[in-house]
């Protein structure tokens, strides 16, 4: 039982660590690159405009998709690793 508890706690910690990492990328591409840091990216031209605009209208969405699939894939591995999958 004690082992179960520590195992479960470690699983939850691994999950939280993965979530925090993904959420940092999530915030960085959308709030960062597309909005707040856009002036810094204005020197990088992309198809008639700059990288910030690309992130605002395309890049963030593509990154979001990548993040969810990465998360789902990593979590499946973590589920198996801790024996908590279905």
């Amino acid at each position, binding site marked *: 039982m004690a082992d179960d508890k520590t195992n479960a706690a470690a699983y939850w910690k691994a999950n939280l660590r993965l979530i925090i990492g993904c959420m940092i990328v999530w915030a960085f591409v959308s709030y960062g690159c597309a*909005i707040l840091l856009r002036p810094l990216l204005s020197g990088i031209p992309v198809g*008639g405009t700059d990288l910030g605009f690309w992130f*605002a*209208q*395309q890049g963030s*969405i593509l990154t979001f*998709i990548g993040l*969810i699939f990465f998360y789902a894939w990593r979590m499946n591995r973590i589920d198996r690793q801790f024996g*908590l999958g*279905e």
Partner: protein
Amino acid sequence: MSQFAINLLFVGASFALYIGIAVWARAGSTKEFYVAGGGVHPITNGMATAADWMSAASFISMAGLIAAGGYGASTFLMGWTGGYVILAMLLAPYLRKFGKFTVPDFIGDRFYSRTARVIAVVCLIVASVTYVIGQMTGAGVAFSRFLEVPSSVGIWIAAAIVFLYAVFGGMKGITYTQVAQYVVLIIAYTIPAVFIALQLTGNPIPMFGMFSTHTESGIPLLQKLDDVVRALGFQSYTGDNGGKMNMFLLTLSLMIGTAGLPHVIIRFFTVPKVADARWSAGWALVFIALLYLTAPAVASMARLNLMTTIYPEMTGQVDDYEAAAANPIRYEDRPDWIRSWEDTGLITFTDHNNDGRIQFYNDTNPDFAGTEAERGWAGNELVVNNDIMVLANPEIANLPPWVIGLIAAGGIAAALSTAAGLLLAISSAISHDLIKKTINPNITEKGEMRAARISMAGAILLATYLGLNPPGFAAQTVALAFGIAAATLFPVLMMGIFSTRMNSAGAISGMLAGLVTTLLYLFTYLGWFFIPGTNMLANTPENWLFGISPLGFGPIGALANFAVAFAVSRATAPPPVEIQELVESVRYPKGAGMAVSH
């Protein structure tokens, strides 16, 4: 065959398909009615979620909003997709593990409180009903434009179709109908976009076309668009607009509002396993992105097409934009698509300076006043409704009539699929949370099914009534729906999963704090219950608290919710041990199969 007959054929065929699916997928038990039996494949569920999510507003209005707002309107793109990252990581898997039917069900059980359950039902109903009004009016507009019936008749037809497949099929019928509706709406959206991208840039993929070279002028499309709109006094299309804080807050509000909207959350209860809930969120976003990555391309290309139609000399390579702007098209030479949209009143022309030409420019820009006087212009002469950007696209690009029929079917599919999802969220909250869990716990399965169907029928009648007699605030409803979902349901779900210490007193006071602050802020600027003239402060940036727009207030309400809930829960006793164990168990996927067999 006339355009009308073609539209009728496409819309009629798609309706026959939806009803056929509903008959095939009749719900036989409450489990089938609420969660489609719980055995939906993650890809199927992703497709249904995408149709559920993409409303008439996404299909018809979003590209127009982006065309008008350029870079500033990116909030809609990021906000309405970024919420799925939150859903996939912070909500969907745990709520699926919990294995109940509705969102208030989780809140009521997790916070062991009937009061919490009822407050959640109220928040859910306010958020969903305000949202469904827009869907019904949207369906009415689409019908009246394409089937040439009055908009009120259109709303009745829409109500009858939703009634047929939602009342009998429940979640099971809705799920498979939404899959069909997704296919119809995405084909309808992308086909015209592909042709327009080909015409303008030679690249058939719109999302790449928008960043490539404009064929006729030889310069990048977006640069061309910036040049053209600036020459006419409009704000640069890709340029920064300054209002970074509100752009930030509005994006955040749309993201957490998306994650908190009950009709989206309940879709994740239909998959068999916790892992499937994670995958399913990813698939939902893939299917949503097919439209959301195309929309900005449609927007920029439609805007450029519109400008070069009015100013033909701006089409090719231009050395002198001043000279090109002096020669707008003669009114009598306007293309057919402008003529046909003038009939609907969505494009209007007034010849202010009586020169027989269409001057289309930004007459509200003070820096442009000098140029305006120099050219002898006496005000903007063309008013174009944003909503026609998607609907008029096939005509602007001279596509065959069947594409217009397809767009008609797609727009109606988008409105109906979202309306059905919202109506299901409302009716299951009433029949399951209010009737079974609060008023009459002894109700039989059969009785609960009947209650679910009656409340669904009632919800459809209410939605139809509100669609026919939209309250004055119809335009503000999206802000309200997102604000409430963001400020009440989202924080309480998050705390229910991530804090074992959160108790019922904290959750209840938090929800009330979020609800009250958000409503007060919206009512202060938009009028009490949105009744015009009762607002205490004018809705202008100078009056806003710290410059926060009412549209972007959701995250602030959520913050109030978190803060109050945290403070109250620390000051009161921790939740009972069995609840703390329940929260622990929600965190681990193992045993979700057991949890579903309620």
